[in-house]
């Protein structure tokens, strides 16, 4: 006689008493009831964690993109400052420096600032109606570098020393370096926050899983009685936790994405205000690129996967203790 579900006759013979099969007798109940796992708190925790992670990632992406933009703009310019010097004609020195710049290979555009333009630059600090003649205001010349070209700065400086000894050449390297380290620090801090969020998620999920297992211990014991292995039992729980993780990830990630989606509109409401202008100067239009949204969606899925993984790990550890 076969034992495990192969062909065999009925265990009991009801003869003429054989009943009609009731329509309602069906396997409808899940083995682990959904209500037995206190999911709301876990969904809220995962949603909050995903939201925080998404805001962090989004902010890092915004800062990185803006910093890259600033860097490319600044790196494509050289600024020459010609300072007034006793015994020298500032206008002539500025003109000589402009000509020297134009002769330099790799420079595609040279724009000397006139006396009036230099006064305009100082307006925010010194106000209007000031006679610039009375002040030792240096002249600024902006040179645009051909993309991909690296002008010979040492030769340029030497040439400047000859034609205008008071001129200084600034390729903004120091500023770019500072910008680079600031961006690096921002990304590093973002990664640190993400790591903390992930650790907090794992801890929360582990506690929730332990709680669910404790609440469902009788079910686990019965499943052991009927010959279910740990993998079978763990999978019954795992699908709940994966669903909870996906729900939380969807809510947290979705809210964050909506937030970034609306951020451009929000930024436009504040435009013209001092705060709005500072933000615009720092982060541009405050809008994520499509690749940024993809990164946030991938992150939400990752957090749901981490929830499932942490749950699975705890499930097997707990099953070892339940006989």
């Amino acid at each position, binding site marked *: *006689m*076969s*034992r*495990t*579900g192969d062909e*065999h006759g*009925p*265990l*009991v013979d*009801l003869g003429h*008493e*054989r*009943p009609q*099969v*009731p329509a*309602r*007798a*069906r*396997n*409808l*109940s899940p*083995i682990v*009831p959904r209500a*037995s796992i206190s999911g709301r708190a876990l969904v809220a925790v995962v949603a909050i964690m995903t939201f925080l992670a998404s805001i962090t990632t989004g902010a890092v992406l915004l800062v990185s993109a803006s910093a890259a933009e600033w860097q490319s703009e600044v790196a494509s310019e050289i600024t020459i400052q010609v300072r007034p010097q006793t015994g020298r004609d500032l206008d002539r020195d500025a003109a000589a420096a402009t000509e020297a710049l134009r002769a330099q290979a790799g420079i595609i555009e040279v724009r000397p600032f006139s006396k009036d333009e230099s006064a305009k630059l100082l307006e925010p600090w010194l106000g209007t109606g000031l006679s610039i003649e009375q002040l030792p205001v240096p002249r600024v010349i902006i040179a645009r570098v051909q993309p991909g070209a690296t002008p010979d700065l040492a030769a340029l400086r030497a040439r400047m020393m000859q034609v205008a000894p008071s001129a200084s050449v600034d390729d903004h390297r120091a500023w770019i370096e500072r910008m680079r380290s600031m961006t690096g620090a921002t990304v590093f801090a973002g990664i640190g926050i993400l790591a903390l969020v992930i650790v907090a998620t794992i801890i929360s999920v582990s506690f929730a899983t332990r709680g669910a297992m404790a609440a469902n211990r*009788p*079910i686990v*014991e*019965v*499943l*052991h*009685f*009927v*010959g*279910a*292995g*740990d*993998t*079978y039992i763990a999978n019954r729980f795992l699908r709940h936790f994966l669903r909870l993780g996906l729900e939380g990830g969807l809510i947290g990630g979705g809210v964050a994405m909506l937030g970034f989606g609306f951020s451009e509109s929000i930024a436009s409401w504040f435009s013209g205000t001092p705060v709005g202008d500072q933000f615009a100067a720092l982060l541009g239009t405050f809008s994520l690129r499509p690749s940024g949204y993809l990164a946030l969606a991938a992150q939400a899925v990752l957090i749901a996967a981490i929830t499932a993984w942490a749950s699975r790990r705890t499930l097997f550890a707990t099953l*070892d203790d339940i*006989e």
Partner: protein
Amino acid sequence: MVRFENVGLRYGLGPEILRDLSFLIPAHSFQFLTGPSGAGKTSLLRLLFLSMRPTRGLVNLFGHDVSLLGKDQIADLRKRIGIVLQDFRLLDHMTTYENVALPFRVMGREESSYRREVIDLLKWVGLGERMDALPPVLSGGEKQRAAIARAVISRPQLLLADEPTGSVDPTLGRRLLRLFIELNKSGTAVIIATHDITLMDQYEARRLVLHQGRLHIYE
């Protein structure tokens, strides 16, 4: 099928509650396990069901030394054993039908392949009208019958029953005994732990008597 050699069991640092048990349970055999309360019947059943390991001695089940088995192998062996416990262990969120069908579900079988069998067995144990009832609304006797049905539905090679007729009237007790006998005739080795002398007198079978931790066998 089952071989115990000098098996001893103690809980923690307490005294040995089972001592030097050596016996064989042949395939297709039928036996009652009896003895006074506290003699260790339930502990012996737990050893047989692999939910405990002996403190000493050798337990060999279906040709496997149980001390060498991993968790997955134990789970596989348990599929060949049916057990009825005194506290029934039914799942409260599942109907009677679903509780009885659970072993098949765990095996991964299609419901259509066993539905008729489960319903017939439920009718046989007198639960035909209670298939859709949840355990909390079943009486003690009904729960016991559901637990028995769940233990026998997959036709285990070894059936362990701890006081299986304790909560039912004598008529139903006889009917359940008949079910065990039928199961035994179809090839299952049966061990029924009971205090019920009347039940034992109804069927001529081997008796394993536990007394003060030792086992005496009356063929």
